[in-house]
């Protein structure tokens, strides 16, 4: 089977390097790594770090597509390096760069502080007007209530969508795809009562209205979250809310 295919012995990785203590401008280092059909890009990076250059810096943890920390650009495409076969990028050289839109701290590691702040700006957690006492038991939910938000809860905060979003790269104030999708995840949760609070942030220009529906976020999402769809759905709710408050100014504060 595999004998009939021409499998290369090695593949070249051109890796983005930035070591602020030795260089003022980023450079690229080429590494020749062994090729295995079962290797992901992350396996090749780990090979570089273990055997070729221990100083290479990058984030990773679970190597199974759930922690969301190993997002990088492979030949310009935002991908999870733990879920992208080397084979899919043959014959190489394969260019590995940090995600776009995040200031580079070192090598492939970007500063994600902006995204973390946005997650708290949109209050991406369950909000209750009043918590019921523990003795009263769980907040029950039907399977169809779960389905309302389940898709958005699949987000792993890998930030590929931010890297792919042209609006975010032009206007870093834009709240961006994942944070809006996660806000929707809680808005659509039957246990949540925080939609009104989130609306104040989301209905700003830098919230949903910054989105021009390019749709790249949904293209690159490794978990099928469809942030672009979440944003468009939210535009509909925000618009209804806006006209409702125009027609009935006293009913909403």
């Amino acid at each position, binding site marked *: 089977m595999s004998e009939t295919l021409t499998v290369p012995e090695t593949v070249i990785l051109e890796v983005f390097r930035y070591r602020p203590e030795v260089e003022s401008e980023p450079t690229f280092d080429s590494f020749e790594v062994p090729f295995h059909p079962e290797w992901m890009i992350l396996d090749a990076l780990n090979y570089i770090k273990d055997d070729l250059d221990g100083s290479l810096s990058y984030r990773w943890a679970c190597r199974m597509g759930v922690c969301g920390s190993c997002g990088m650009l492979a030949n310009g495409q935002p991908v999870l390096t733990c879920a992208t076969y080397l084979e899919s990028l043959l014959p190489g050289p394969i260019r590995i760069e940090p995600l776009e839109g995040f200031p580079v701290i070192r090598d492939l590691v970007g500063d994600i502080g902006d995204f973390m702040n946005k997650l708290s700006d949109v209050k991406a957690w369950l909000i209750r007007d009043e918590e019921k006492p523990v003795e009263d038991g769980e907040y029950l939910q039907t399977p169809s209530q779960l389905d309302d938000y389940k898709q958005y809860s699949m987000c792993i905060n890998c930030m590929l969508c931010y890297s792919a979003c*042209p*609006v975010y790269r*032009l*206007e870093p104030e834009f709240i961006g795809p994942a944070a809006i999708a996660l806000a929707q995840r809680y808005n659509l949760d039957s246990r949540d009562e925080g939609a009104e609070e989130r*609306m*104040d*942030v989301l*209905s*700003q*220009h830098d*919230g949903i*209205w910054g989105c*021009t529906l390019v749709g790249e976020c949904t293209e690159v999402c490794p978990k099928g979250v469809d942030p672009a769809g979440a944003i468009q759905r939210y*535009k509909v709710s*925000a*618009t209804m809310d*806006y*006209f409702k408050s125009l027609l009935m100014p006293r009913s909403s504060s």
Partner: protein
Amino acid sequence: MKRSREPIIWVLFGGGGMASALFLPVLILVLFIALPLGWVQSAPIDDLQWLVRHPLTRLGLIVFVMLCLFHWAHRFRYTLYDGLQLSHLNEVIAVLTYGMAMVGTVVGAYLIWGVG
């Protein structure tokens, strides 16, 4: 916190996208291709004139023209704003694009009301 007034524009944009996608190809096909080429038989001219002169038809056409123009304006505004990276001219661009849509709507209304 002050909420964006964007919903008004977005409704016009969305409505225009929907209306132009649904009706424009049909109108162009029927009025400008099928009828002149004789693919379909025209209804009696009296019936057509009655239809065009009916106030509801005129109103519908004016709304249709307005929606199409606002759809164009919004799209073109963001083409300039993001595409050409002219975000510092945001206000000028908005006034020009939506202004042109408004002027176009008035001109369209004038023409449609004068037909027949």
